[in-house]
Each structure stands twice: as structure tokens, then as C-alpha cells.
């Protein structure tokens, strides 16, 4: 907890925070980092195999092979989510499965499955992006800002 937040607490609450912190199990950060590295690395390695598969067997360039590769990874992630396996893998691997595109696909698929009981319009359609929505909003906005900077630099005589 940050110091700013702590200042709002009464002395009794602050005392309790240090009392309880001493008795709580900590997140195993080092272990989580190693697991995230292994899981994330495995997913990327798998992606590389899929990309090579498209490069060798079909008429793709290194640039265009990216799209079908991502599509296959998304499909795999959605299948694992729908069969109820993905969340167990994620509990083990943490950021390893959350950061790659598989995590993004999982956040959309899981929300869509979860809200199927409220119907297609008010449930699936309306709730599908409850987690992914902020990624899309801020992702698009960040891309816009970067594009704006790049264009401005180009106009000012950059390459």
C-alpha cells in the first residue's frame, strides 16, 4: 500500500495493517516471474512454429504470416477457455498467459460465455468487452497519439 493511501487511515487502522501484513502469505513474486517467463515463452515459441508453418506451406511473407498466426492462437485460446481449462493454466502462469494475445482472447470469450444466460443482445453482445473494452479504448487511443507524433515529425522534415 502506498504512503498516500496510508495517510487517510486512522492510527488504529495503520497499526492493524502492519499487524495483518505480518501474518499474511505473500505473493510468490519470484516464482510467478519464472512461471510467467516459461508460459509466455512457450506461447511465443508455439506462435513461431505456426508462423513458420504458414511461411513454408503457403504463399505468405514474414509480414503477412502474422495475421493467420494470431488467428490460430486466438482460436486455441477460445477453445481452451470454452473447455474450462484456460483459467487453471492462468492461475499457474499468471502474466505468462495474460500478456500474449491468448489472454486478450480469453477475456472476451470468457465474458461472452458467462453472460450467455442473459441472452444474445443484453448478455453476450453487451458484456463481451467488459474486460477487453478498456484494452481496446486505450490501445486505439495510444496508437492515435503515436501516429500523430510520427506524422508531425514527418511533416517537420523527418524521414
Amino acid at each position: 500500500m502506498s504512503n498516500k493511501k496510508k495517510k487517510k487511515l486512522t492510527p488504529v487502522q495503520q497499526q492493524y495493517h502492519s499487524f495483518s501484513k505480518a501474518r499474511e502469505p505473500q505473493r510468490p513474486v519470484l516464482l510467478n516471474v519464472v512461471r510467467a517467463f516459461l508460459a509466455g515463452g512457450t506461447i511465443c515459441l508455439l506462435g513461431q512454429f505456426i508462423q513458420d508453418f504458414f511461411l513454408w506451406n503457403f504463399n505468405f511473407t514474414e509480414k503477412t504470416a502474422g495475421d493467420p498466426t494470431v488467428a490460430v492462437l486466438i482460436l486455441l485460446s477460445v477453445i481452451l477457455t470454452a473447455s474450462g481449462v484456460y483459467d487453471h493454466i492462468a492461475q499457474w502462469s499468471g502474466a505468462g498467459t495474460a500478456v500474449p494475445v491468448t489472454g486478450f482472447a480469453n477475456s472476451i470469450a470468457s465474458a461472452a460465455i458467462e453472460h450467455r444466460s442473459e441472452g444474445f443482445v443484453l448478455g453476450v453482445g453487451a458484456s463481451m468487452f467488459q474486460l477487453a473494452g478498456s484494452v481496446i479504448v486505450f490501445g486505439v487511443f495510444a496508437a492515435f497519439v503515436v501516429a500523430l507524433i510520427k506524422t508531425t515529425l514527418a511533416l517537420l522534415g523527418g524521414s
Partner: protein
Amino acid sequence: MLRGRQTWVFPNRPTIISTATVGGPFEAEGPLAEDFDLLHGDLWLGQDSYEKAEKKMLEVACEMAVQKAGLQKQDIQFFLSGDLMNQIISSSFTARTLAVPYLGLYGACSSSMESLTLGSLIVDSGSGNYVLCGTSSHNAAAEKQYRYPTEYGSQKPPTAQWTVTGAGVALLGSKGEGPKVTSATIGRVVDMGVTDPFNMGSAMAPAAVDTITAHFRDLRISPRDYDLIATGDLGRVGHRIAVDLLKKHGLEIPEDRFTDCGILIYNQDQPVVLAGGSGCGCSATVAYGHILNRMKKGELKKVLIVATGALLSPLSYQQKESIPCIAHAVSIEYDH
């Protein structure tokens, strides 16, 4: 009858004439599986939504409790119930099926003992002969409402708890055979500024300690008067904090007499449960199933159930509010 500041003593000793507990697949894998009246292998219970599945569990538990007592639905005067769903739909929809005069309660996971306390008050005062007190929770329905979609892959910290899928119902009567409710302590809301909903144990422990100390102060008794004191759903993290906090307050409870329903209900090697069980169904199923069964076997004579509740909402958490917590204690005695 008021004793001390916040404790009711019930001189007419309302009787728990029957109980019924229903559990889900994870509870079936736990060490207390034998103590459930009915276990379901499927989270859906043949319904088309988790919310409906929770309602179904509570309905079945109510029916079973009434049936076990050899009564009819019409014999029940009041139904008191609460749950975790928005607008307590599980309880209200069950009341619709039961068609019994109903009071809906909300005390988060403390609803189990809140309903038992108020039910005992009704029976003790002669305002009703048969009162049904129930509560339920469903893991997936609670996750959906309070946290993320069930299949969403997020990593939970070791302090997180697992919401119990279960419903527990107790039928109180003014006379008859069975365990007696002798006193109850109503808790205050305690907020120690904990904001992490994945750390409910340490948020709720101070509320449990506050109610336990109030109970012993009001009744002028000591923890040694009880064979077992069980908190509702502090889990392993909250239980450890509660033990040390009580010690700090000069109230030492012998280790073998102090436990937590959230620890009892699952095996430690069930990986998904992390720090233990939580939810309304946790204290209700363990108290009305396991603990009362032990009392009936004569292993325990006097127990104190302290159901703990975290009174947060998903909105209050998003608005960075801390978690207010509460605990209600009910004393149950059984003389053979």
C-alpha cells in the same frame, strides 16, 4: 432478553428441530462431504443459469428441512433468508416458491447467523412456532457478480478464498427435540481500512474478534465454557490473524476449540481454494451439517458460531472504498 450491550439471551430456548444442507462439486471433494444431505456433481444443477442453480439449491434445502421435521409448508410461519446475489434474488425467489411469509435479509456471509438470530428471537418471544432460516451461495454466480467471469484467466493471490456452492437451512421450533439456541450477539460494523477483495480474511478478522469479545463480556463467561468456537469464513489467513488479535485483547481460546468453517470445508490440497472457503453457504452448511452432526453424536455440547460478512459491493470496491465487515455470534447447546 437483552444482556449486556448487544447480546440476546433466549430463556425459552428455541429448538433447531431440523436442518438441511446442499453442496456442489467442490464441497463433495472436501472432507465434510459426508455431512451434506445432498451433493451435486454439476455447478448448473440442470438449470440454464448459475443464479437459477443457486435458487434451486436453496429451494431443495428448504423442502428437505420441512420434510425432515415431518411438517408441511403451511405449518411454517416465517421464512428468513439472505444471500449474496444482487437484490437477494435467491432468497426472494425461494420465498416465492415456498409461499410462506418472508423477511429478506442481507448481511453478506453473516446472513446465516443473522437469520438464525432473528428466527430465534421470533420463536423465543412467542411470535411464531416454526421459523425457517436459510441462506445460500454459489461459487460461479458470486464470481460473476463480484469479480471476473468464471473462465477468465486471472491469477489469484494466496490470500484469496473460494466461494462455497451450497445452501444451509435450519428450522426453528418452540418445542421439540434438538439443539437449542441459547443466546446471540449482534455485531457492529468494523472497518480496518482493508481494500483488497482478494484478502477478505484479514478484512473480516477484526469484526469477528469484536463480536467474540462482546459475547464473552456481555454474558460474563469465558471461552472455556464452549467446546467449539467456529468463525464463518475467515479462511487460513483470517483465522491466524483472529487468533493473534484475540490474544492481544487478552482472550485466549485453546487452539483445539477454535476453528473456522472456511478451513474445515475444504482439503488443504484442493488447489483452487487457496486460503479456504467463503460465502453465505460456508458457515451455513458447516454449522448446520458438520457441527450439528457432531453435537448430535455427543462430541460437542456447547458451540458458538460466529458468521462473518464483508459488506462490500463491486461498485464500492471500484470506487476505492474500504471493506466494512460484520460478524454475528450464535450460541447453540445440546443436552442429551
